[in-house]
């Protein structure tokens, strides 16, 4: 993948993008702060959220089996997928079994992660994205830049032009958001009413009952999970919660952290198949795709606690300037900087752990208390350093570990110090963006032995 600094440079040159981002992130950040402040037990809820997720990770094998049994008992079918290709094949098989060329789909990061739409298209099945922003991006061949507001980088006149080119059926549109939303409603309504197969992700899966939960705003999630006779849900294995009652914690944490609302407009919960209500055939695909690798790292594991609220994006000084595309992954921002390298292997995303100033704002707003700065440092330690830096660090370690070497090196540095404030040669990148500080004329130790020494 393109390294973060390279991709970020392009984003930073786009002043429209930076303007949109600043606007959007500031607005959501302030809304979040207001609704969080009115909850007297916010810290207790965060702590409960963290502890529940830690328990899920520690006993994930048991919860997976319990979830499988519960779903089957309720009339659903459970599939397991080691990677994206296996999951995509399962979904394609279901679509083919019902002989459809179109499925309606609700926005899901997990299915974006495994490239489900592309895989279905290759198999002759068109997945219609029904989330308003996702529809915009799909119509334009673009991809999301924010977890929650995927088209945050698009303004209303761009959307108007796009709709007139694609779904407006020759009608003239204004750039009024109301009219644009109505255009999407009209276009998608027929699709929903006639859909045979729906595809979704899920925010949570309950081990105790086999219940799946989709949290949303527009109603397209309800449409996709209710109207088609057949439903397939792709669920990352880390999304489980032990009990139904645990939702009382997460349904308080998620909406306030995410959209800054006390509660999102619609949350749908369903368990297997209910006769006379909703899909009569239900499949859930349990997806690994690198998650067990993340699980095996006891420090990095907490990245799997993420409930995808995107609060960390909105407060991050790096994300707020570069936007989501620079992270080269469906998981942008601080959470992406720790999740992507672990899912793909650090060697495949080695610039991401450095895409942070370690200011800690992400940790502070995280509703499940993921210590993102610590995980970033932990991952930085695993990235491969270049040879010169490695040799320099090793020598420094030796010098710092021996008092005589240390004092000798200080004298040497002072003697060899020139007027230049830059380090030459292979270590030049250290001083590309900062000046080398001058060495002290006299060290503390020298002063001490001169003044107080024997």
């Amino acid at each position, binding site marked *: 993948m393109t390294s973060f600094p390279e991709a970020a440079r392009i984003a930073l040159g786009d002043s429209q993008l930076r303007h949109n981002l600043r606007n959007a992130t500031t607005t959501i950040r302030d809304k979040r702060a207001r609704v969080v402040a009115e909850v007297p037990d916010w810290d207790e809820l965060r702590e409960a959220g963290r502890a529940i997720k830690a328990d899920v990770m520690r006993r994930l094998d048991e919860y997976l089996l319990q979830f499988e049994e519960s779903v089957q008992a309720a009339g659903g079918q459970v599939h397991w997928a080691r990677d994206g290709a296996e999951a995509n094949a399962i979904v394609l098989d279901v679509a083919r079994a019902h002989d459809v060329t179109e499925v309606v789909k609700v926005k899901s990061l997990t299915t974006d992660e495994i490239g489900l739409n592309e895989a279905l298209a290759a198999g002759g099945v068109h997945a219609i994205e029904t989330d308003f922003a996702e529809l915009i991006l799909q119509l334009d061949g673009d991809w999301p830049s924010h977890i929650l507001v995927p088209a945050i980088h698009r303004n209303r006149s761009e959307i108007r032009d796009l709709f007139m080119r694609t779904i407006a059926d020759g009608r003239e549109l204004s750039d009024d958001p109301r009219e644009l939303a109505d255009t999407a409603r009209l276009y998608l309504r027929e699709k929903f009413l006639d859909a045979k197969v729906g595809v979704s992700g899920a925010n949570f899966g309950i081990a105790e009952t086999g219940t799946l939960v989709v949290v949303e705003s527009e109603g397209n999630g309800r449409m996709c999970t209710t109207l088609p006779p057949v439903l397939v849900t792709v669920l990352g*294995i880390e999304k489980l919660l032990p009990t139904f009652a645990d939702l009382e914690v997460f349904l308080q944490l998620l909406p306030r952290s995410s959209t800054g*609302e006390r*509660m999102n407009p619609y949350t749908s919960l369903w368990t297997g198949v209910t006769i006379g209500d909703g899909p009569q055939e239900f499949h859930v695909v349990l997806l690994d795709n690198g998650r*067990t690798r993340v699980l095996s790292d006891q420090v990095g594991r907490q990245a799997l606690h993420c409930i995808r609220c995107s609060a960390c994006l909105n407060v991050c000084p790096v994300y707020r300037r570069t936007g989501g595309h620079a992270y080269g992954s469906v998981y942008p921002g601080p959470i992406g900087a720790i999740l992507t390298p672990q899912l793909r292997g650090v060697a495949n995303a080695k610039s991401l752990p450095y895409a942070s100033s370690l200011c800690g704002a992400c940790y502070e707003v995280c509703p499940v208390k993921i210590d993102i700065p610590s995980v970033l440092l932990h991952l930085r330690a695993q990235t491969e350093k270049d040879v010169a830096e490695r040799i320099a660090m090793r020598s420094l370690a030796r010098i710092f570990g021996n008092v005589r070497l240390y004092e000798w090196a200080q004298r040497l540095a002072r003697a060899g110090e020139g007027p230049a404030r830059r380090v030459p040669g292979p270590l030049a990148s250290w001083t590309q963006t900062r000046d080398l500080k001058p060495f002290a004329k006299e060290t503390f130790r020298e002063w001490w032995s001169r003044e107080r020494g024997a």
Partner: protein
Amino acid sequence: MNEARDEILARTRAAIREGTPPDPLARAYRTTGVVDDPGRVALLGERLLDYRARVEHTTATALRDLLDEIARGDRIGVPRGLPETWRPANSVEDDGLSTHELDALDGVITGCTVAIAETGTLVLAGGEMEGRRALTLVPDVHICVVRTDQIVETVPEAFAALLGREHRPLTFVSGPSATSDIELERVEGVHGPRTLIVVIVKEAS
């Protein structure tokens, strides 16, 4: 695909074999409310208005007239278990209407199972007076009748009230459908009902 299942379980077990047991789970958050009955009713109304829902207060005896007035003779869908006295003149009972038939309705009237004041949320649990999920989804206007004794203050209280209904299809509704995807400007009504009317009925004591 039993091979994939076995391998994922084996990888999971290998990944968590080492490490400390998780800390005991502390549920120190609020599980009960503190507001009195009238306060709870007022709070629910206020929070729903915040979402730009329409809120009406009435009594059991005046309910029928109010529902007739709201329905204005439109074709209103109702679930099978909805009491006669809640049905406006031109109501259509949902006896398995197709999606297109549902789309042709002007609105729908239902009850709910529990309402959460603090978050302005109505919980539909597929009961006799709530109907199946499609009924409250496809028509453009949802009129939901809430009895004051169904209103709780906090989210945990609602989950306590849902005990025994975990396996039913559940929908949490907090205001009309909405999107803020265009420059973060909120627009009510994308795919779900664009109008939500909540009728709060004071119980006869």
